[in-house]
């Protein structure tokens, strides 16, 4: 690590904090347990944060959870619509993470190819 990288980190974190304010339409939950991290969940998460920031999607909140119990489907991402449907995506890579942001979070269209199951129950 060097000073340049630290500056970048501060800038990035600052931008992401700014996007936290306001009402949220979607909650994105990334599985960040040991198996998730080993499968690349961190890169998936930072890509999504990046993409959300680039597209200025203030209506999306990103958080994490631990192991879900579907280790073979990691990295996993769950998209929850406020008061609505939940979609679980599995084996998400960086490309898939971008797709989820542009398709699902931006346009409201699910990425069927990555979906592994859906809970019908509302929270």
């Amino acid at each position, binding site marked *: *690590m*060097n*000073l340049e*990288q*630290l500056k*970048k*980190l*501060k800038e*990035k*974190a*600052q931008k*992401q*904090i*700014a996007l*936290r*304010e306001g009402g949220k339409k979607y909650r994105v939950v990334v599985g*960040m*347990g*040991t*198996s998730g*991290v*080993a499968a690349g969940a*961190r*890169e998936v*998460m*930072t890509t999504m*944060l990046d993409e959300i920031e680039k597209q200025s999607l203030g209506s999306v909140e*990103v*958080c*994490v959870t*631990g*192991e*879900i*119990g579907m*280790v073979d489907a990691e990295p996993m991402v769950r998209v929850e619509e406020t008061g609505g449907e939940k979609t679980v995506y599995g084996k998400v890579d960086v490309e898939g993470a971008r797709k989820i942001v542009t398709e699902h979070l931006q346009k409201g269209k699910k990425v069927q190819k990555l979906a592994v199951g859906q809970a019908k129950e509302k929270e």
Partner: protein
Amino acid sequence: MFEELSQHILDIAMNSLSADATKIEISVVESRRHDRLVLRVRDDGRGMDADTLRRILATSASTKRSRRKAIGLGLAFLRQTSEMCGGRFAVRSATGRGTSVTASMRLSHIDRPPLGDLNATILALCAAEKKTAVQLNYRSDEEKLRFDSRELATKGAVHV
């Protein structure tokens, strides 16, 4: 297994979040002069008693009852990495007094994984739990760098 040490850090720090930490202090010391790399993750979470501590240091044990499928390999992985690379591994904890995980290794050891993307780890942690303060202290022979998510949060509030 993890390819980067920064992934280990994220993994260990996720435990801190599960333990309801309000503050996570990550320190990374990289010294070519002493041929040493030391990682430490310290939190003010709920900590563990001596029995639990003994249990989690055995391979494949987890305190997370909510998930029956939790495997509990995170600490074991880091221990393996540090011991394999000529270092030591220690966990200190007491109920109500937080936990501190320290892993050292020989910087020049051929099996030592690269530090990797430390920024990604910190950003993921900051986003993971907004209320938890994330601090990074990085030190090398030449440099001393510090990141504190709370400093950003107060600056951010001015804009709002």
